[in-house]
């Protein structure tokens, strides 16, 4: 149960990073281009690829343990 709670916090943090870093805030105001797109658009495309990989891992391994109702842990609070 404790392990699951820890995992839940961990995945909340990972989710937060996936959201926050989808915009390259550190490139703010820098006029960079590569080919037909601004660099921040390229970055965003790459980041969405990473998001997909993380989502795939989550779906395979943690989807039910963290979200399924009925095994008594879903309403642990």
């Amino acid at each position, binding site marked *: 149960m404790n392990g699951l709670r820890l995992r839940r916090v961990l995945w909340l943090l990972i*989710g937060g990073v*996936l*959201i926050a870093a*989808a*915009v*390259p*805030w550190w*490139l*703010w*105001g*820098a*006029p*960079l*281009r*590569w*080919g*037909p*797109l*601004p*660099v*921040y*658009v390229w970055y*965003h*495309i790459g980041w*969405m*690829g990473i*998001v*997909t990989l993380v*989502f*795939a891992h989550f*779906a*395979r391994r943690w*989807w*039910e343990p963290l*979200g*399924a*109702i*009925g095994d*008594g842990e*879903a*309403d642990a*609070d």
Partner: protein
Amino acid sequence: MLTELAIVGGYLLLTLAIGVAAFRVTDRGAVSYYLADRSLGTVVLVFTTFATLLSAFTFFGGPNLTFAAGPEWILVMGVMDGVLFAILWYVMGYRQWQLGKREGYVTIGELLGDHLGSVTLRRLIAVASIAWLFPYVMLQQMGAGEAIVGLTGGGVPYWVGAFGITVFMIAYVAVAGMRGVAWTDTLQGIVMLGVIWIAVGVIVQAAGGLGALGSELQLETPGFLALGGGVYTPQWMIGTAVTIAFGVTMFPQINQRFFVAQDVGTLKRSFVIWPLMVVLLFVPAFMFGAWGAALGVTVPEGTNVVAAVLSAVAPGWFVAVVIAGALAAMMSSSDSMLLSGASYFTRDLVATARTDAFERIDEAWVGRVGVMVFALAAFGGSLLRPGTLITIGDTAFGGFAQLTLPVLIALYWPRTSARAVIVAVVVTQLVYLGHVFLDPVTVGAVSVFAPTYLGWDFALYGMLMGAIITFIGSLADPAARSVDQRERSVH
């Protein structure tokens, strides 16, 4: 002009034919009609959710914005739809799906009302949802009107396009249920993706290659290359992404799709490919606006950028194909909206108000008349054109977003009190409406009803307020059902 109109009209008739085909395999039970028997597989679920999200707001509002202000909107939409919405789909949608499958729920109001033991709450959620659906349906009609004006160079007036989509969506909802909507959404999603990428090819060729297109961007619109600037402040980008993502989850047409997956594998696969779908469509669609600006295309007032840019670089028939695709995408939002709105109206309002005197009223009939009245009223509103597509969409999203956190708390926290949720919804809706309709008033050092506080959208403060009221109200409510009772109802 006739060719263009024939292409648009032909495409719409094709989707209507699909609706009729779906009608033949749908019986009139609520789960069959509104939820396609909870039987959608991955491809259809992804495309129907996707196409439903792709309203006039995304398809016409987005490129208009990137044309004027730069392609940062791609990032806002990516955060909002690609990541945040996908996560909410898991957090809220997976839970709803499980409860819906077990208890047979068709609407979120029904789920909450039953879960927290309050018919008032059920009705309140339905009323608020239907109210915010109104400006959003209006937005589709405005988008269609502007698209037809853009396509025909003003040959067909605005109201004809707006009225056309109104009639079409009423007809569609009357014949096809969720299954028909989902099937046509799949067709429309694929067509959409196809035409937008072909359109990118056309504009690249017209500019003389990818490098040349980039050079134009650098030369003509250097501000677009730097992240931020103009309307794009961090507060605005974050505020918009958060309110829209949370708002979308409570949109009837999106929230109801949380119930329709056939199994958990479908949900997982949809979740994983979601961010890729968002990139595949939004990057080209929104770059279109930015590239159009770089190529110096002029866009007449009140028309849309996609049509103007394409008209400058592509033959008329191709412009018509793209506009037909876009109209179809808007249609798949609109018919889903009306269908879900009808289910809220008949199940959460009409059916719960039933007394002996009304016993013989036919729910399906009431639903259809309701849809017609609602769509025609929205058409009336669309003739007044009370704002830009982005402004109207944003207002509706923010209104829905006020509902999301109280609902989310209720889904996860067994102590949640129905009365606390009701108070939270009523208070936040009133505060939100006050901000939309009243002019700012300065009280002492503070400006009340201002559009932003410390640079952040008022909708965010409303969301926070809703969560706090729900939380404190539940702790304070002695009548909140005990955890033991809730355990019984959940497990």
